[in-house]
């Protein structure tokens, strides 16, 4: 059978022991790190914060660079979209409109007017190019006709001359070939 120790140690002596045990226990529970250790830890924390504040501008610069790249990319995409909305012209023979391009946007009334003007311009350009190209061709032909005349190949000369007049009706023949 157990007995209560307070039965044997009653009175002020027991109370003193109890107080001593309580103070020892509370002293053990209240064991805290030394003040110097606290200061060391807090100083380390402050130093770390200062170090981070010094390196923070670089982080800001990284964000700014990312934003700039995004804005540039968007600008390029928008410009490309705007270029795609204008009619697609391909220089084939002069300026010919490529209306068969599947990527080309639908043509509006104003676009059709622009296309008509462009086609007229391309036709006239092609004609002028053709006329310019034909002058050396006619000169060479005339030289060949003169050679036929000098070599007295009269039948061939008549055939060639008829063909030349059909090809170049407005061309003024040299006096040697006019008779």
């Amino acid at each position: 059978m157990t007995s209560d120790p307070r039965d044997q140690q009653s009175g002020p002596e027991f109370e003193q022991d109890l107080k001593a045990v309580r103070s020892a226990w509370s002293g053990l529970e209240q064991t805290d790190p030394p003040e110097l250790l606290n200061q060391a830890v807090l100083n380390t924390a402050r130093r770390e914060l200062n170090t981070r504040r010094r390196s923070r501008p670089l982080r800001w610069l990284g964000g700014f660079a990312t934003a700039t790249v995004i804005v540039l990319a968007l600008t390029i995409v928008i410009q490309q979209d705007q270029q795609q909305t204008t009619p697609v012209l391909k220089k084939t023979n002069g300026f010919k409109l490529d209306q068969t391009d599947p990527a080309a946007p639908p043509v509006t009334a104003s676009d059709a007017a622009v296309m008509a003007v462009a086609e007229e311009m391309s036709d006239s350009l092609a004609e002028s190019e053709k006329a310019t190209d034909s002058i050396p061709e006619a000169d060479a032909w005339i030289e060949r006709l003169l050679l036929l005349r000098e070599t007295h190949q009269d039948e061939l000369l008549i055939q060639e001359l008829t063909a030349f007049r059909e090809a170049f009706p407005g061309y003024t023949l040299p006096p040697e070939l006019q008779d």
Partner: protein
Amino acid sequence: MRERSDETLMMAYADGNMEAFELLYSRHRGPLYRYILRQVSDAATANDLFQGSWEKIIKASGSYKPSALCGRQAEEKPDGTRNGLMR
């Protein structure tokens, strides 16, 4: 006024709030120190371990994410058992 959680204090410290760290430190310094002291039974070693632990916490605070359980949240597991390092 509602008590700020450890996670909130760590995030505040990571954002540059020194007072948040002081509060976090005052909340956990005693329990952590006593835990270490009980494990090693030597004050000098306990001091070294204590300081090293806090230095690691300070260094890692920059990349801290409040996904892991710590402190009071870690004490109560879903099955009702207790867990955690800070007590």
